[in-house]
């Protein structure tokens, strides 16, 4: 183990101590948790001088005290409310059985992590913390290891066939100082398919991890919204491993929130697989939003897409760190990455670090990153036809975000997200 600077180690120990140690009765997860704990100690929790945290200050995600986050009062209809789905509710990071549906549906098995650890579920034992651990190289992700070590709740989903309706994880935030750690494990057997929805702020501070193992020919669709609470903070990690001819698609909508860092770590290990990760983020003022993505191509003829769009206003900050790594032998890789920000004023800032690292000679990879203001010519054109300036700006903002939203395959879900985006814009218009 490398010696860490004293302060980093102190901070890490302080955080571990504040969490009250490893959950008791960890059962089959015990080994994974111990391993993760050792990794956290070896890596140390992130601090601002870490290269990977250059654009996002990790202090408030690491410190023992949770910064308060006021609860959002809204009479708005819940996201995905119109979708026929199986609801699983967590309140401030704790499973709420009364608010949830029965965890039973054809084509899958769902267990609560806290309960599942009591039973011997061999596939979960093999998976819990495994993808997170794999995701620690070549870049350390200590907050994910912290989660594996300490998370007390979450779900374990085993998808064996076709599932009749989406599973919706609903995250309610009811305490201004809640500190939630959720760890989900999803395993899709060969040919199985699942749509997973997530919505809500979860807590004043959330550390969320999801590990998804997509076997050959399986199909995983993921759409998530992160709530509208202005002061909430979140760091999330999605780890995915894709088998031959499998599909993984994930879209995240983020509006508001003081601090959000969403990491996606995806490994294409079977030929002809496809992974799409996309995000639309909008915020103003002290909004800080970071998408950090690492896609590894380790098989032939795989396709990956990263499409991230941010609308920033009133001094908001956006960050994108995205990497495509094409390993030796991953021929005919088709990799695409775009990150763009629309800056609605001069105070907002966007930091982008797009990276390609390619060790195969027959690949097609492209990436682009831009940041700019509303096109004045287009704005004038719309206004000259009678569209008021604020509505014209909103139309162009939605147009800007469209490429990311279009990554959502299901039309109903896509429309739902567009409606939410319109709602955010309308509220800002006043």
């Amino acid at each position, binding site marked *: 183990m490398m010696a860490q600077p004293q302060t980093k180690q102190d901070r890490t120990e302080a955080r571990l101590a504040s969490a009250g140690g490893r959950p008791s009765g960890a059962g089959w997860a015990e080994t994974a948790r111990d391993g993760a704990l050792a990794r956290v100690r070896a890596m140390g929790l992130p601090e601002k001088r870490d290269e990977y945290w250059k654009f996002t200050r990790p202090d408030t995600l690491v410190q023992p005290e949770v910064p308060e986050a006021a609860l959002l009062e809204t009479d708005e209809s819940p996201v995905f409310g119109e979708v026929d789905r199986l609801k699983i509710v967590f309140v401030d990071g704790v499973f709420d059985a009364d608010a949830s549906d029965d965890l039973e549906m054809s084509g899958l098995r769902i267990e609560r992590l806290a309960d599942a650890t009591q039973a011997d579920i061999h596939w979960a034992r093999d998976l819990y913390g495994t993808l997170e651990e794999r995701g620690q190289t070549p870049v350390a992700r200590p907050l994910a290891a912290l989660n594996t070590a300490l998370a007390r709740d979450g779900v374990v989903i085993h998808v064996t066939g076709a599932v009749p309706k989406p599973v919706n994880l609903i995250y309610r935030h009811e305490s201004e100082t809640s500190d939630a750690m959720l760890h989900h494990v999803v395993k899709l057997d060969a040919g199985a398919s699942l749509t997973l929805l997530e919505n809500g702020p979860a807590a004043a501070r959330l550390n969320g991890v999801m590990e998804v193992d997509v076997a050959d020919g399986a199909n995983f669709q993921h759409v998530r919204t992160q709530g509208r609470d202005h002061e909430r903070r979140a760091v999330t990690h999605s780890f995915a491993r894709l088998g031959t001819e499998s599909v993984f698609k994930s879209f995240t909508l983020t509006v508001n929130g003081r601090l959000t860092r969403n990491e996606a770590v995806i490994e294409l290990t079977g030929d002809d697989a496809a992974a799409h990760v996309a995000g639309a983020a909008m915020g103003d003022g002290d909004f800080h939003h970071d998408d950090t993505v690492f896609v590894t191509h380790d098989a032939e003829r795989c396709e990956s897409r990263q499409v991230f769009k941010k609308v920033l206003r009133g001094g908001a900050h956006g960050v994108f760190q995205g990497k495509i790594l094409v390993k030796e032998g991953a021929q005919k890789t088709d990799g695409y990455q775009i990150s763009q920000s629309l800056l609605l004023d001069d105070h907002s800032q966007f930091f982008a670090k797009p990276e390609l690292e390619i060790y195969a000679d027959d690949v097609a990879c492209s990436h682009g990153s831009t940041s700019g203001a509303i*096109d*004045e*010519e*287009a704005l*004038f*054109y*719309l*206004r*000259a*036809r*009678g*569209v*008021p*300036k604020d*509505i*014209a700006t909103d*139309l*162009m903002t*939605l*147009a*800007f975000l*469209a*490429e990311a939203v279009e990554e959502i395959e299901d039309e109903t879900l896509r429309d739902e997200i567009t409606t939410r985006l319109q709602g955010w814009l309308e509220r800002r218009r006043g």
Partner: protein
Amino acid sequence: MLDIKNLKVSLEEEDKEILKGVDLSVEAGKVHAIMGPNGSGKSTLSYVLAGRDGYDVTEGSATLDGQDILSMEPEERAAAGLFMAFQYPVEIPGVGNMTFMRTALNAQRKARGEEEMNASDFLKLVREKAKDLQIDPEMLKRPINTGFSGGEKKRNEVLQMSVLQPRMCILDETDSGLDVDAMKLVAKGVNALREQNRGFLVITHYQRLLNHIEPDVVHIMAEGRIVKTGGPELALQVEEEGYEHIKAEMA
């Protein structure tokens, strides 16, 4: 209907006067044409009337039915009944043509205190107008002007004009980039809109458009002023003798 008096306009960024006292009145039911060489200020006039940024009005006035349009926002001018067909219609990826037209129409109606048009009436209206202009329904679904040919863009301008039914239409070099067939189609669309209560100001460099949209009055603009006004025969004179000759004649 449209009254422009002694209009003087400078570029905001470089203290350069482009319009040096333009006087012009377009009556309801009439088509006026402005012809002039490049750099004479024709397009600046249309932009200033439509409300584009970057110009300083230093003197004079422009009113539409007695309302001072120069103090209005571009969208207010549109609601007041002014429409400018762009020389270069802007491509706006991601904003659907239909959504845009309906938003524009209803925003104008709302601004005028009228009832908004519902989706099915709107669809019917647009389909009917599009058919007259031989616009493919597929084109309506596409984002505004995105990937449209030059002719399609200009037809889309005329389509918007037909849907929005403005009082006063300004056509800025609508013939530029069009072949004869496309020009005829556009002219047909414009002619269909000619009526007693509507005025037109057709800005063009060449006489050829005026064979298809026949003007009642022709103005020659040079160096920021209207230097000569006459009937349709003036356009033919320009075609035969060129602008230099007319300018020399006026000097």
